[in-house]
């Protein structure tokens, strides 16, 4: 059937995603799940927020529905809308409604990017009511105990305009993510990038250097994700400096001088 919705089972995660815990986050998240409290994940880009939620979904054996938020995301994009099909108006569930109906985990990525009036729809879902009103159908859904709501945002590049309202924030259990300590990050880069320790370790050092360059004009340092991507290029036989340039330096900045400085770091480290 054309334009059919993905069945909920297709959102299930079959294989265990690789995730290296850095603290108590798994225990906290599981406890939150059992208690029906939503989760707020915060941390810089590429530090493992999305991977963590995938891992959690796998552990809990729940489907995971991810919505990447943007400033044009409307309530109907989340809840659902009527579509016209062969002369008839047919209701179609949005991702949030689908997750509530089927008891999945709904993950709103970069929630601050969404408009404030949109984020308000999650309010009744995120407190002890656990309800989702669907105005257009006159329906009030109550979430089953398997349903979980998780949102994420990056406090790093948040402007005054893009901050979560206190009334939204204070419904969540918050987990703060940061780049792992060097040993763990090396382990992750080895595993995910398919690298040996002798290449992964200087890569991690390089990332640590870039993360201190805030005053020199780099808004955010290299994320673990960038390191893994560089690692994958290296595993495919691309020379280290080229891989670092393509996967790390160029991804971080357009500034010629900073690029040159990053090149110098790479050539010093490898």
């Amino acid at each position: 059937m054309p334009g059919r919705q993905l069945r909920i089972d297709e959102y299930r995660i079959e294989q265990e995603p690789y995730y290296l815990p850095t603290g108590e986050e798994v225990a906290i998240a599981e406890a939150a799940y059992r208690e029906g409290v939503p989760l707020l994940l915060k941390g810089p880009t590429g530090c493992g927020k999305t991977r963590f939620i995938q891992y959690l979904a796998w552990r809990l054996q729940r489907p995971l529905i991810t919505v990447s938020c943007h400033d044009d995301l409307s309530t109907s994009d989340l809840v659902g809308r009527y579509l016209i099909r062969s002369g008839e108006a047919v209701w179609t569930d949005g991702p949030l409604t689908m997750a509530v109906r089927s008891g999945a985990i709904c993950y709103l990525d970069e929630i601050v990017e969404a408009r404030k009036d949109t984020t308000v729809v999650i309010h009744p879902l995120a407190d002890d009511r656990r309800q989702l009103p669907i105005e257009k159908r006159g329906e009030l859904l109550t979430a089953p105990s398997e349903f979980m709501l998780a949102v994420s945002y990056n406090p790093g590049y948040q402007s005054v305009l893009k901050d979560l309202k206190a009334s939204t924030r204070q419904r969540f259990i918050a987990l703060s993510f940061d780049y792992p300590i060097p040993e763990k990050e090396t382990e992750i880069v080895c595993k995910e990038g398919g690298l040996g320790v002798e290449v992964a370790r200087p890569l991690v050092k390089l990332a640590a250097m870039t993360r201190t360059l805030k005053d020199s004009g780099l808004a955010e340092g290299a994320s673990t994700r960038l390191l893994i991507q560089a690692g994958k290029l290296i595993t495919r036989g691309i020379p280290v400096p080229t891989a670092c340039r393509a996967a790390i330096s160029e991804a971080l900045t357009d500034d010629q001088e900073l690029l040159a400085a990053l090149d110098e770091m790479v050539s010093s480290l490898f």
Partner: protein
Amino acid sequence: MDLEALKTRFYELVAPSLPNEWDVEEALAALATENTDQLDNILSQVPAIWPVSHSLCFAYLAAAGPALHCLAPEELSLWVHTLLDRYETTGLHGAQVFMNEGQQHFVRHLRGQGGLRLIEVRSRLQPYVNGLAGTELPLIASDRAYTDTECIFLPHEIGLFAGNEENFLLYKLMVSFQWATIRRGTFTVPRFFSPSESAIHPLEQLFADFAVPANARCLYHFFETGRVLSFLKDELPGLMRQSLALLPRLPISADTAAAPNLLDRLQQGLLRGILSAADHSETENRAWALLQRCQGRGADNQVSLDAVRELTLLLSGDEDFLTTKPLVFQGPLRLQEVWSAQLKRRQERELRFIKALTIHVQQAALRKTADKTDDQDGPKIAASQQGADLALVVETEHQPQAKSQPQPLTSLRIDNQEVALSEELTELAEQIRQDLGVLPEDYISSAAGKAGQGFSAIHPASPADGLGVSAPVVYDEWDYRRKGFRKNWCVVTEREMPTVQTAFIEQTLQQYKGQIRRLRHQFELLQTNEHFVRRQRDGNDIDLDALVESLADIHAGRPPSDRLFIRLAREQRDIAVYFLVDMSNSTAGWVGQSIKEALVLICEAMEVLNDRYGIYGFSGMRRLRCELFPVKRLDERYSTVVRQRIAAIGPKEYTRMAPAIRHMTSLFAEVEAKVRLLIILSDGKPEDYDDYKGEYAIEDTRHALLEAKAKGIHPFCITIDRQAHEYMAHMYGEVNSIFIDEVGRLPARMPEIYRTLTT
């Protein structure tokens, strides 16, 4: 040309100033022999130099003739440009040095024959070293490479190799090496030394105990170099691999020495991997073994010290290592500078700690007084007593636990009262303890004492005019005569605007009552930026009209439209605006009054919009006292205080507009908004007490506006004057300004202008 004619020309050039005749004669005497073309060329630069410094101008006249022997005539202006830059960074002395020996040098660079200069590579190396160090470690030009642990000093220029790639590599090696000496603790005070306040670096005291202190210092530095290099091999293997080809080619003293001493031979061994085969003396073998030990994993500077001690015993008395120059990247070991830097850091930390603790204690005391309703037994708090007798201070958590397990200090006992520390204070206390071993009691007692002296220390009573000065900011100024910036020329300070209570606001609100109501309505219309868009392919809701039509079409056998939805379209009005108001003397009277009224009106109207706006007044006198008065900061509410500040706007001094514009530009840098608007309200030409007027002032202002535009800011200028002037279009740009000849119309016009600008 004879001297008299020259003098006349010179006086014409520097008019209206009348320099001393003897000085002029003396300076011009050197030029009398030059031919006319040369003279024209030389004198043409005088107007650019004279306003900067008269002494510099005289010095220039004396040096220009000889300079032109090396320079092509068209290169002179570039030379003067460099000269002025040098003057502004290093003063007259630096400029004279440049003139005396600089021409050859300058010419070499101009024609691309020089080595690599630090200024060319700094932009690349500075972030590099910041990344290595994790903090800002400024790179500063000096005669040689060394560090005082606060900064890294590097030679102005490296021309050791023919290719600049290799010169750059040497720069990079220097930077990395100097950073590594800091990182690996070459300057660390040995463990057995108790922290002391002595004026001499403890290492220096150690060396003084040797028979020949200088030799001990040289050896120590050498062993440390070996240790640091081996660290670099582990840490930055790429750099060391590239340097492999470079190191053996670096000059060392052994190349020139008639009879290389032990240190020469060791340097040779370290850099070139060869020990002079001739005599492997006992001492040399031993030294080599010691070096290996220093290079071992986990060795600290203690190992190097032990090595020095052991090797010195084997030395014959007549060795003199001072003849051996330190390696190029190694540079001199300047322990004294390191020590002063450290003492300075310590002092700053002490001051910061005392200041923070003082405020902290006072605030704690204030909170307490507030808590105590009525006076039960009087406000018996630390701050209310005299400072001296409450200095009974005990460090609570630190003492019982001793050094073995240092716990972060979270509270202090002051005058028998537990004071919980803020995070900042805890961190500072921790740094101090790491440095000194303990948190000295006099730090705490002096803070307690200061807190006891009352609150005046942090809440200065503010007399009428402009206290509460913020940290001054320095800006460049554009000098059109030399087509370059005067570096760090103007000092801008933000001053607190006093508030006054007058009937002005009330009167204005009353007078313009109807207009304000109308304005609010107009501005409200600006704000509604949501509307439904019908007949969309997708949207929030079904467009019933379209649906009915399409059903009708189907029945009529026509192809139906698929545009059946309504979408709510929103436009984000994301605007930040600063109003910059001229508060110069000339605005006295009606002009100032109208400006103030206009501000009240615009504020009233702006309140219905969500646009962020700020108001700053500017005035000042001379370049070192440009003043900005924040009337309303960007995110401040339009409160009674703001209204009272508007009422307090009044004529002050001069109109040096450009530094104010530059300051606003830098304020805008921290503002995130789609549209950033700078609206300037002025009553005429920029002018200041010093020579800031006419073309110079206009060009500088124009340049400041161009800089703002380059940063994505839209400047717009409203000028109130009797008649329009030609310079306005040039200074502000044709479309970026408006001129109002009838002062009374300003309050009505301004909101109108704003509305047009932002829609």
